[in-house]
């Protein structure tokens, strides 16, 4: 009997598969029973009503995609009146993703979504911090510490910090988030990228640049997952380019305790239930009884410790 139960600090999930913020909503219930998932994660919400970015908001690149949606949000009230009650129908724990432009507003929102029916709060600190130079909170350890301390003080719920790959200080940021009281890290958000239509010479995204997600992100997110798992004691949730059972296993081996699936759901909307079944089957055939037998089991003894912190490759 394969046991897919996954522990994320105080939270126990029935399996390690959950959606990535912004690539999931109650609309997916049209395709399968959402109660099979390990957790539900909302699109990032903001306090105010926001319109989002100009279209086109997505484009393709070789085997992956870019997006610049811009966190359109119907605001906090709509979340409380409509979204939260909707998820009450499910047993699966609900994780609410939130964001704000400044640390105090972020903390207030965090406090306001600390509500019955919310199992954890994912803080999208990969979004621009307009008090500083517009760089995301999670680009630097200092701004990570500042915002995470305020967020920690604002809620008793498990607090997941979602990191950005657009930094040269992944490990320092991860450690700052842990020190400031994060209960888990989500690794990671999308990587800033661009595409131009050579015919029209216009950027393919209305907002000029956007975030790379999908298979191209996998080796980058896997590296970050490994770096984070090696340098913090809180659980790491892997995210980036996951679409096949082997991807899930690879992230677990690298040190992730659970994974989020984003872009793959666009290509194959039933991918998450397929991954849950496929993971059980894989573990059965490989004789692996528990998820924890996989987590962090990478055989990296031979590779020198020094290179864990290596920052340049060739």
């Amino acid at each position, binding site marked *: *009997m*394969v*046991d*897919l139960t996954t522990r994320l600090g105080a939270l126990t999930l*029935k*399996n390690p598969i959950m959606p990535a913020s*912004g*690539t*999931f*909503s109650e*609309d*997916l*219930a*049209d*395709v*399968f*029973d959402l*109660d*099979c998932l390990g957790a539900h994660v909302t*699109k990032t919400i903001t306090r105010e009503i926001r*319109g*989002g970015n100009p*279209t*086109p*908001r*997505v*484009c*393709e*690149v*070789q*085997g*992956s*995609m870019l*997006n610049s*949606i811009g966190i*359109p949000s119907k605001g906090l009230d709509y979340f409380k009146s409509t979204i939260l009650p909707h998820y009450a129908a499910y047993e699966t724990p609900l994780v609410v993703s939130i964001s704000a432009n400044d640390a105090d507003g972020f903390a207030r929102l965090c406090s306001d979504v600390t509500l019955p029916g919310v199992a954890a709060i994912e803080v999208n600190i990969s979004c621009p911090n307009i008090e500083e130079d517009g760089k995301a909170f999670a680009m630097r350890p200092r701004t990570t510490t500042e915002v995470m301390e305020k967020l920690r003080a604002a809620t008793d719920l498990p607090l997941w910090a979602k990191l950005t790959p657009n930094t040269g200080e992944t490990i320092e940021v991860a450690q700052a988030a842990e020190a400031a009281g994060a209960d888990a890290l989500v690794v990671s958000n999308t990587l800033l990228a661009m595409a131009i239509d050579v015919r029209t010479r216009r950027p393919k995204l209305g907002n000029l640049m956007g975030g790379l997600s*999908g298979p191209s992100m996998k080796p980058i997110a896997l590296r970050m997952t490994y770096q984070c798992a090696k340098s913090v004691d809180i659980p790491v949730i892997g995210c980036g380019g996951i679409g096949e059972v082997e991807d899930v296993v690879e992230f677990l081996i690298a040190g992730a305790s659970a994974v989020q699936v984003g*872009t793959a*759901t*666009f*290509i*194959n*909307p*039933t991918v998450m*239930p397929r991954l*849950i*079944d496929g993971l*059980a*089957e894989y573990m*059965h055939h490989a004789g692996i009884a528990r998820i924890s037998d996989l987590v962090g089991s990478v055989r990296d003894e031979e590779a020198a410790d020094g290179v864990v912190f290596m920052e340049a490759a060739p």
Partner: protein
Amino acid sequence: METVIEMPTRGALRKGPVAEGMARIKSNDIVTGDYRLMVLDAPPEMLDCRAGQFFHILCPTGESFRPYLRRPMSIYCFDPAAGELKFLYKVTGEGTGALSELRDGAEVNLLGPLGNGFTIREDWKNLLLVARGVGLATLAPLAKEAREAGCTLTAICSARTEALLMSIAEFEAMGAEVIPVTDDAGTSGVEALREVIEGRIAEGGLDAMYTCGSNRILTLLQDIGARHAIPGEIALEQQMACGLGMCHCCVRSFRREGGIVHERVCREGPVFDLQEAMGW
């Protein structure tokens, strides 16, 4: 000792209103120019459709084409009795290029039916549709629904040349009156169209108008609709990622009391109120 695999989601892939699965290609031939007709053997759960709805198609990767996202395609024809689904598409890029290479017997992964179809209110009797190019694919199934609702339908079919006019026979078979117009003949311009439509209105009245795609025709119909208080609907297009309402990439702007709002083409659309739609 035989161990038992716990299948935590067994039964999770139960049928929701939207199906995802394979359909087998019966034929996939050129209609005219770059236009192709794909006829599929589809399972019953995919055939509970409305005119105006669409499928989100996983176009296969091969040596020459490497699409990544799915591609939205209007339902050109659905026939639950025959188990058939048809798409009429124009080969324009990676995705439609990949579709065009599929041989009879190949399978293609479909997600759908998706979105909201056209409305035919009970008190509407005389309907008009204006379709241009591949817009025919979206509007064609309205003919059948109009007939089933006991309405008379006039279809203005527009194309660059006569050779590119498609589906006239199909419309006529459904009892629609077809008015072909072409750029070549100089009959497809906005003013020419206005005359034809105003003529119809003068003759017998029009209860509703339907169109899709073209900005020029949208503006024309909005103007005529506003003057004569004739309601209408338009099917819109927009880049799509998820097709289900999750990603918010497919929004368009609409005029509403209180200001301009964004709505998702895949979820609130693709069919929208004619007057609320904004040009792009």
